[in-house]
């Protein structure tokens, strides 16, 4: 019996399946005329079975433990930092806007410098997310669905538990550094603002980590069909980007030895330039898009 509502539910549920499963299952149900409650039960059954299979797949847990968890934690720590800086600047310029300042050339100079500095920080974070996603996308197709879910869940979880703060606390307790009295919040007017405290960080996470990360996953998965040489270059570039990301996570330097910390401290200017190397995805995405555009045009011309 035709039941558009049941079929709509089945269609919605099928979104949780991969493309091939969705095609095959929905096609089978259409062909057998089973588009009522049975369709919902069948699709739901397939979704549950797929998820259960992923849950018991050791490859998925291996990927989560050794790749997705570290990448998610690092990206979430940097995103928190970027969101914090962005909140301060936005509050300064938007919430305390004064037209009189626009007549001051110094104001425009500082605004330009701030915009460039913050713009680069956002771009680098998006590129790090893309590179991390690219490495996740290189995982076998069978684990990709679970990897995507794990990536988003772990990002949100590490964002909620404040990985950066916990890392510093862990280092302090493991080195016997006493926790001092709580310092007054110098950003109290900003943290008191619900938008900057609760909403803005999630916008930063979505725009600069989740979206570029998922784009990286898609490109990483597509790259499986590229030539071996190109694949090696791309994976090496993404790995280097993730390593650069690692040394820029606030608090991570505490886990290194004193000599490494001192070296990093002495080479601060070089460390600031290093993230720019991570911007390679920008060129790759543009070149890839251009290549696809040319390919499409050539196909139309033929």
């Amino acid at each position: 019996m035709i039941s558009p509502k049941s079929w709509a539910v089945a269609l919605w549920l099928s979104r949780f399946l991969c493309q091939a499963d969705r095609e095959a299952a929905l096609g089978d149900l259409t062909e057998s005329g089973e588009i009522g409650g049975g369709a919902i039960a069948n699709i739901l059954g397939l979704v549950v079975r797929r998820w259960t299979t992923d849950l018991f797949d050791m490859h998925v847990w291996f990927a989560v433990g050794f790749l997705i968890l570290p990448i998610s934690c690092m990206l979430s720590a940097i995103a928190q930092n970027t969101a914090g800086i962005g909140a301060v600047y936005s509050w300064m310029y938007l919430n305390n806007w004064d037209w009189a300042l626009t007549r001051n050339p110094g104001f425009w100079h500082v605004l330009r410098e701030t915009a460039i500095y913050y713009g680069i920080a956002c771009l680098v974070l998006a590129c790090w997310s893309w590179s991390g996603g690219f490495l996740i996308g290189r995982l076998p197709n069978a684990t990709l669905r679970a990897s995507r879910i794990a990536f988003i869940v772990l990002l949100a979880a590490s964002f909620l538990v404040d990985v950066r703060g916990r890392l510093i606390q862990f280092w302090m307790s493991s080195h016997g550094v006493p926790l001092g009295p709580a310092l007054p919040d110098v950003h109290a007017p900003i943290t008191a603002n619900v938008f900057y405290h609760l909403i803005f960080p999630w916008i930063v996470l979505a725009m600069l980590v989740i979206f570029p990360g998922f784009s990286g996953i898609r490109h990483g998965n597509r790259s499986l069909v590229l030539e071996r040489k190109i694949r090696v270059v791309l994976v090496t570039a993404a790995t280097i980007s993730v390593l650069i990301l690692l040394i820029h996570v606030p608090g991570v330097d505490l886990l290194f030895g004193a000599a490494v910390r001192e070296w990093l401290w002495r080479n601060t200017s070089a460390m600031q330039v290093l993230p720019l190397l991570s911007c390679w995805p920008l060129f790759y995405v543009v070149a890839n898009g251009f290549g696809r555009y040319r390919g499409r045009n050539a196909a139309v011309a033929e």
Partner: protein
Amino acid sequence: MIGEFEYLILSSATRLGVDAYGASIRSEIEKATRHKCSIGALYTTIDRLELKGFVTTWMGEPTRERGGRSKRFVQVTATGVKEASDFFRAISRISKGASWTTNRTAR
């Protein structure tokens, strides 16, 4: 050794030949067993069989009777045929002398 549901899929796919795909295999199994066969059980088992190398699958072209969606075709490999025949022989051997094979009621 394969399981009974895996055997049902291998047998149906072999019987159907080039017409072996999700819906047709499911229909064959339902006719033979007189039980409902869920799509979830069917496709997860087909995946398992493919992983073991007993079948190969591929997506066909979209068709109108399927609402413009593709079929997932299934072909049994030589290893799959051997596994299915091994299973059938084992079932035949173990069933010899069992009450239901000689129309006797079990005591």
